[in-house]
C-alpha cells in the first residue's frame, strides 16, 4: 500500500452473487483524483458498468457501497458511507448515505468500495473480514428484522462486526425500503428493495487495517481547527447537540414551511406539542456516529401514555414532520413508535410518512374507500399511522398499495394533483412555496425530491448573518448550483453535512490534501470541479435512463395552489425562470443536456 494510497485503501471488492465469485480490483489512481471517492466512485462505476434501461429490481442492477478518503479518519463527521444503485422508486440515479459505524469498518476492512451484482439463489449474507470476503448462505435469517439479524450475526461471527441489513420490507420489495445499520439507515429511494431483490440479507464487515494519512502534522492541525470551529458554532456546538436535528422545528413552523396535511397548509397547530422544547423530555441520552464531536443522535424513550415503553434512536426532524405534521398528528409517542417500526421493517421514514399522509388525503377526498383500507385512516389519527406502517412492512392488505409509493398510487387512484413527489421520490419536510431556493433544489436534485443535494434553507430562513431573500428567485440558480457542487464533494469525501455546516470549504480542501497527498486536491477550484464532474456524470446517467426537462419539475400543488397562511401566504413557486437560469449557469442546453464545451472542460468527453 505505502504512501501511494494514503487516505485510500487501494482496493475495490467485486462480488457476483449469481456466480458466487469474489474479485479484488486495484483502485484506479486517475479515478481517485478525478472523483475523490464515495459518491464520485459510485457514479463512475455505475455509469460504466450498468446497462442502459436495466430493471432496478433485476439481477442486472448493481448495488455499490463506497467510502471516501476521509471516511474513518479523525476529520469530524467521518462515519459516513454511500450506497448507490439505480432506484426502483424513480428509475434514475440513487445514492443514499448513512452514518454510524459501517463505513469506517468497511474502510478498515481494506476496501474503498464494494460492487454487488447478480442474484443469489438462496438468501445470503456477505461477510467481509480484513481484506477477505465470503458469501455465506443464511436462509434462517430471512424474514427477520434488522435488530435481530444484527444480534444473531454478531453472536455467531463476533462482536466487532458492523452490519448493513434489510428488514422484511426490503425482502418484499417495498419501493421505499431502506438498508439499516444499527438503527441508522441508507434511507431514501429504495436501496433496501434492490438489496432484497439480490437475496442479500446483510453485509457484515470487520477490519483491522490502519488508515494512513499523507501529512500527519497538517492533518492534525486542521483537525484541531475544525473541532474548535464546531465547538463554538451555534449550530454544531449548540442547538444540534442539545436538541438533535429537531432544533429547527419551531423556526420552520414560524416561517410557514413546515407542511401540514400533505402540504395543504403551512402552519402546524400542534407544533407546540412536538417542538424541540417538548421532545427533549423524551431523550434518554446523546449518541454520536463514528468520529463526530456533535453527537446529534438521541436515544428516545416514551415514558407514559398509550405508547409507553417504545424507544428509538432519534426521532429526527424529518420524521417528526412525516409522522407528525404531514399526518396532522401531534402525539410524540406515536412518532417515536412509528420511527422504531420504520427501522424494524426497514422502511424510509420520510417516504413512509408521505405515503400515509397522501393516503389520508385520498380517504378524505373519497378517492380511496375506508372499507378498502380496512381501518380508520384520517388526518390526526395516530393509531391509523401505526396500523398502516405494520401493513406496509408486512405487505398485507392495503400495505401492498401503499408500498408502491406516492407516484404509482396517484396514477392508480387518479389523485395526481395531491401526489407530492419529484421523479417518484417523496417530499422532505420543507414547503418550497416559502423558499425559492429549496424549490429549485428539489426540482433539479439527481435522486428526486431531496433536501441533501442543496439546502438553501440554511441561508434563506435560518441564517442571521448571510440571510438572503427566501421569496426572490434572483441568483438562486447560482446558489443551488454551487451548493450542489459543494455537497457532491462532501458526499464524495465522505463527511457529514452537519459538521460541514460549521466548517468552511477551506477546511475540506485541506483535509483532502493532507490525507491523500493528491496534487489537484491542493486547489479549492479543482476540488469544486470534482464536485461538478460528479454532478454532470450523474446527469449523464439520468439522461441515459430517459430523464427529460419535463421531469425537472415540482408537484402541481406547489405551482398552482397558493399557500393559505403563514409568512409565505398567497405564494406559488415560479419555477420555469429559475430552471432556465440554472441550466444556463450549469452549461446545459434548454433541455437540460450538458453542452459539449462543459463536458470537455470536465474531461467527460468520451462518454
Amino acid at each position, binding site marked *: 500500500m505505502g504512501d501511494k494510497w494514503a487516505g485510500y485503501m487501494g482496493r475495490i471488492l467485486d462480488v457476483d452473487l449469481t456466480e458466487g465469485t469474489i474479485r479484488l480490483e486495484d483502485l484506479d489512481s486517475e479515478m481517485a483524483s478525478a472523483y475523490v471517492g464515495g459518491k464520485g466512485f459510485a457514479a463512475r462505476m455505475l455509469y460504466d458498468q450498468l446497462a442502459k434501461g436495466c430493471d432496478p429490481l433485476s439481477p442486472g442492477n448493481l448495488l455499490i457501497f463506497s467510502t471516501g478518503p476521509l471516511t474513518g479518519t*479523525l476529520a469530524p463527521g467521518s462515519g459516513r458511507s454511500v450506497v448507490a444503485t439505480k432506484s426502483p422508486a424513480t428509475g434514475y440515479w440513487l445514492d443514499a448515505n448513512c452514518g454510524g459505524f459501517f463505513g469506517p469498518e468497511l474502510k*478498515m476492512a481494506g476496501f474503498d468500495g464494494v460492487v454487488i451484482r447478480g442474484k443469489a439463489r438462496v438468501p445470503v449474507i456477505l461477510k467481509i473480514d480484513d481484506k477477505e470476503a465470503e458469501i455465506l448462505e443464511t436462509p434462517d435469517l430471512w424474514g427477520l428484522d434488522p435488530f435481530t439479524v444484527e444480534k444473531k450475526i454478531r453472536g455467531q461471527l463476533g462482536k466487532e462486526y458492523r452490519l448493513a441489513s434489510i428488514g422484511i420490507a426490503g425482502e418484499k420489495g417495498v419501493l421505499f425500503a431502506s438498508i439499516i445499520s444499527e438503527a441508522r439507515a441508507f434511507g431514501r429511494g429504495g436501496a433496501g428493495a434492490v438489496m432484497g431483490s439480490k437475496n442479500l440479507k446483510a453485509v457484515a464487515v470487520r*477490519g483491522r487495517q490502519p488508515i494512513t494519512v499523507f501529512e500527519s502534522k497538517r492533518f492534525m492541525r486542521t483537525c484541531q481547527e475544525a473541532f474548535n470551529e464546531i465547538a463554538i458554532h451555534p449550530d454544531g456546538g449548540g442547538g444540534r447537540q442539545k436538541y438533535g436535528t429537531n432544533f429547527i422545528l419551531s423556526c420552520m413552523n414560524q416561517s410557514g414551511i413546515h407542511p401540514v396535511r400533505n402540504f395543504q397548509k403551512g402552519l402546524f397547530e400542534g407544533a407546540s406539542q412536538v417542538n424541540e422544547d417538548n421532545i427533549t423530555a423524551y*431523550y434518554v*441520552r446523546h449518541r454520536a456516529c463514528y468520529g463526530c464531536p456533535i453527537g446529534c443522535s438521541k436515544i428516545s424513550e416514551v415514558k407514559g401514555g398509550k405508547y409507553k415503553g417504545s424507544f428509538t434512536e432519534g426521532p429526527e426532524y424529518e420524521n417528526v414532520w412525516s409522522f407528525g405534521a404531514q399526518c396532522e398528528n401531534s402525539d410524540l409517542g406515536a412518532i417515536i413508535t412509528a420511527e422504531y417500526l420504520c427501522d424494524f421493517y426497514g422502511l424510509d421514514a420520510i417516504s413512509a410518512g408521505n405515503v400515509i399522509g397522501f393516503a389520508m388525503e385520498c380517504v378524505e377526498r373519497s378517492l380511496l374507500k375506508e372499507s378498502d383500507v380496512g381501518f380508520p385512516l384520517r388526518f390526526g389519527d395516530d393509531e391509523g399511522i401505526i396500523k398502516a406502517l405494520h401493513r406496509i412492512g408486512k405487505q398485507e392488505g392495503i400495505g401492498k398499495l401503499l408500498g408502491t409509493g406516492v407516484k404509482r398510487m396517484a396514477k392508480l387512484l387518479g389523485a395526481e394533483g395531491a401526489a407530492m413527489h419529484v421523479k417518484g421520490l417523496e417530499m422532505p419536510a420543507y414547503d418550497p412555496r416559502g423558499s425559492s431556493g429549496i424549490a429549485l433544489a428539489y426540482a433539479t436534485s439527481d435522486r428526486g425530491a431531496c433536501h441533501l443535494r442543496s439546502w438553501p434553507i440554511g441561508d434563506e430562513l435560518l441564517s442571521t448573518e448571510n440571510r438572503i431573500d427566501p421569496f426572490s428567485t434572483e441568483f438562486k440558480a447560482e446558489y443551488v448550483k454551487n451548493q450542489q457542487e459543494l455537497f457532491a464533494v462532501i458526499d464524495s469525501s465522505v463527511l457529514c453535512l452537519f459538521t460541514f455546516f460549521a466548517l468552511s470549504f477551506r477546511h475540506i480542501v485541506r483535509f483532502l490534501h493532507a490525507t491523500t497527498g493528491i496534487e489537484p486536491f491542493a486547489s479549492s477550484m479543482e476540488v469544486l470541479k470534482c464536485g461538478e464532474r460528479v454532478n454532470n456524470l450523474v446527469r449523464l446517467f439520468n439522461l441515459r435512463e430517459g430523464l427529460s426537462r419535463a421531469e425537472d419539475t415540482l408537484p402541481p400543488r406547489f405551482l398552482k395552489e397558493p399557500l393559505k397562511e403563514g409568512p409565505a401566504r398567497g405564494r406559488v413557486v415560479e419555477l420555469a425562470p429559475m430552471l432556465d437560469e440554472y441550466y444556463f449557469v450549469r452549461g446545459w442546453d434548454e433541455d437540460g443536456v450538458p453542452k459539449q464545451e462543459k463536458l470537455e472542460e470536465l474531461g467527460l468527453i468520451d462518454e
Partner: protein
Amino acid sequence: MIRHHGRIACSSFDLSLVRLSVTILMFKINRKSCTGCRICEMICSFAHEGEIAPKRSRIRIESDWPGMEGIDVCVACRAKKCIAVCPHGALSWGRLLLLDQEKCDLCLACVEACPFGGIRLEPTNKRLLFCDTCRGEYQCVKWCPANAIVRAEGNGR
C-alpha cells in the same frame, strides 16, 4: 472542549449501571456522558502508532446498542490485580503501569485479570497495549468532545 447541555435521564432498558462513575487517580470516567464517537480511540492510535487504527487503541469503547457505552481503559485501580497475577514479575507500578518486555512471555494472565479491560493484546504485532498517559499529554482527555473522560484530581501516585 464541548459540553453537552442536555438533561440525561436514567434509562430503564439499560441495566448495566455497575461502573457508572469510577473515580480513580488517572481518569474520571463518566459513562453517562459518552456518546460513543470513538474519537478517543482514533487519537490514541494516532498518538502512538502514527496512523488511524482504533483496533490498536489503548482505550476502547464497547457499545451495546441501545444501551450505554462502556469505556475500557487502565484506570490505575487500587487493587492492581495485573501486577499480582503476573507469574514472571514483568509488571510494576511507577505512576503508571510499566512492563519489562524481556520478562513478558505473553501468557495474558494480566489481560484476563483486569476487571476494567485496561490491558489487551495487539493481535498483529503480539504485544500488550495499556494506557501510558501519552507521556502525560492525556490525548483522549483533550479530545473527548463529551467530557466523558477527564483527568482525576489529585493525580500523582
